[in-house]
């Protein structure tokens, strides 16, 4: 397995408070890396830095060369809440918004089908269930054709049945499309189900692999 993102001596402070302390690890290509930790521990901060959203840190975050064949920073993120979709646009428009193309390509349609959205393209978010909304966000990330996708507790607001369906979807996406997925959760069971490797972010700001 080759590293696709390397983190060396990463330290992040908010004002004087240390949120991440001297963090070192690598994200391996093709894996699902789960980042565990209690609320407020700094998981989201870590993700923002890795995805390229937050550039104010000490230390080095390096990316493999081929990562930016199709992507640019920031790397796609799927968030937990439903405000990540624009309520006045349809599923189709929401998914296409970050991209330059005006219509779905064949490859796009394949992805949409895989994710289970093909009959929902013209609906608006308020007409969708929570699970469908998250699928929309996932599809949006997938269309970037990048190699890494970040997910920040994406299934936290869903009921058990849907959560399980979507967890399965993640596993399949990881296999079929060979996407590296960095997945944040505070749910141990979810971590166990999905992870190839797990990192734990402690409240003291350290990150350890378990």
């Amino acid at each position, binding site marked *: 397995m080759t590293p696709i993102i390397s983190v060396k001596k990463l330290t992040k402070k908010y004002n004087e408070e240390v949120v991440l302390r001297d963090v070192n690890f690598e994200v391996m290509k093709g894996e699902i890396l789960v980042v565990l930790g209690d609320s407020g521990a700094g998981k989201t901060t870590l993700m923002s830095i890795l995805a390229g959203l937050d550039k104010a840190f000490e230390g080095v975050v390096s990316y493999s060369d081929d990562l930016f064949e199709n992507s640019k920073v920031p790397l796609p993120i799927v*968030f937990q809440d439903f405000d990540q979709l*624009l309520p006045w646009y349809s599923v189709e428009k929401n998914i296409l*918004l970050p991209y330059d193309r005006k219509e779905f390509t064949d490859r796009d349609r394949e992805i949409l089908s895989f994710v289970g959205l093909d009959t929902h393209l013209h609906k608006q978010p308020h007409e969708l269930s929570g699970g469908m909304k998250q699928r929309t966000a996932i599809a949006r990330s997938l269309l970037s054709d990048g190699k890494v996708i970040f997910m920040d507790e994406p299934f936290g607001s869903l009921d058990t049945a849907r959560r399980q369906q979507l967890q399965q979807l993640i596993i399949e996406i990881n296999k079929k499309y060979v996407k590296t997925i960095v997945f944040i959760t505070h749910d141990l069971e979810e971590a166990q189900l999905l992870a190839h490797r797990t990192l734990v972010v402690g409240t003291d700001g350290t990150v350890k692999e378990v």
Partner: protein
Amino acid sequence: MVTLKWNRLIFIGLLLAGWQLLFISGRYSPALVPSLQSIGGTFTDECLNGQLPKAVVYSIVAIFKGLLWSVAVSGILVLIGSATEWLDDLVEFVVSIAHPLPGIAILPLVILWFGIGEKAVLFVVIHSMLWPMVVTIKAEVKRLKNRYQRVSKAFNLSRFKTVVHIYLVGTVPGIITGAKIAWSRGWRAFISAEMVFGIVGQKSGLGWYLFEQRVYMNAAGLFSGLIAIILCGVFIEQVIFNRLDAWVQLRWR
């Protein structure tokens, strides 16, 4: 349609009955309390001979003009305010001074600048509509920023895309709400301005209509004018704006 609740109808019925009783009692001169027949008759006559409809149409068009101007100017002000914090503060300051000023109060000043006539009244109308609109739109833009800035940053949306797809399209419900408030403000300002200052032009609106009825002591005509104002106001605010608002709320949230 305006909800036809029974208690509302009964209330109106009692009010009319009470009015007619008052008239019959002779307690007040017919110049103050005309009979329902004379009010009804005058109202019908004035509708048929075109006086009321003309005044109504003129009033609505005038305020609609004011609304378009207000939306445009609010857009510009909000844009200016979004540039830097200093400018935003300036816009807020201007709004806080201008908002409490009733349109009528500045009419004498306005007449000095614009002379008598349509321009002066339009300015007053715009003034009464602009500030609530700016406040509403600014609040809406702020709300949108708080909610959707994260998506914009996370997906690196271009400035153009962010402005058009998030702010422009997203503010539409805010504009409708703002327009609703602005409309009622503008309506009142327009009628009051014409009544208080009795400005006559080639055409004129409901305010002037009321003024004329007053100087010619035409009480039935006065009440007809009031009825027209109420009907218009209810129709536009309830039927048009509420419906529009509901439709937009459905699709935008």
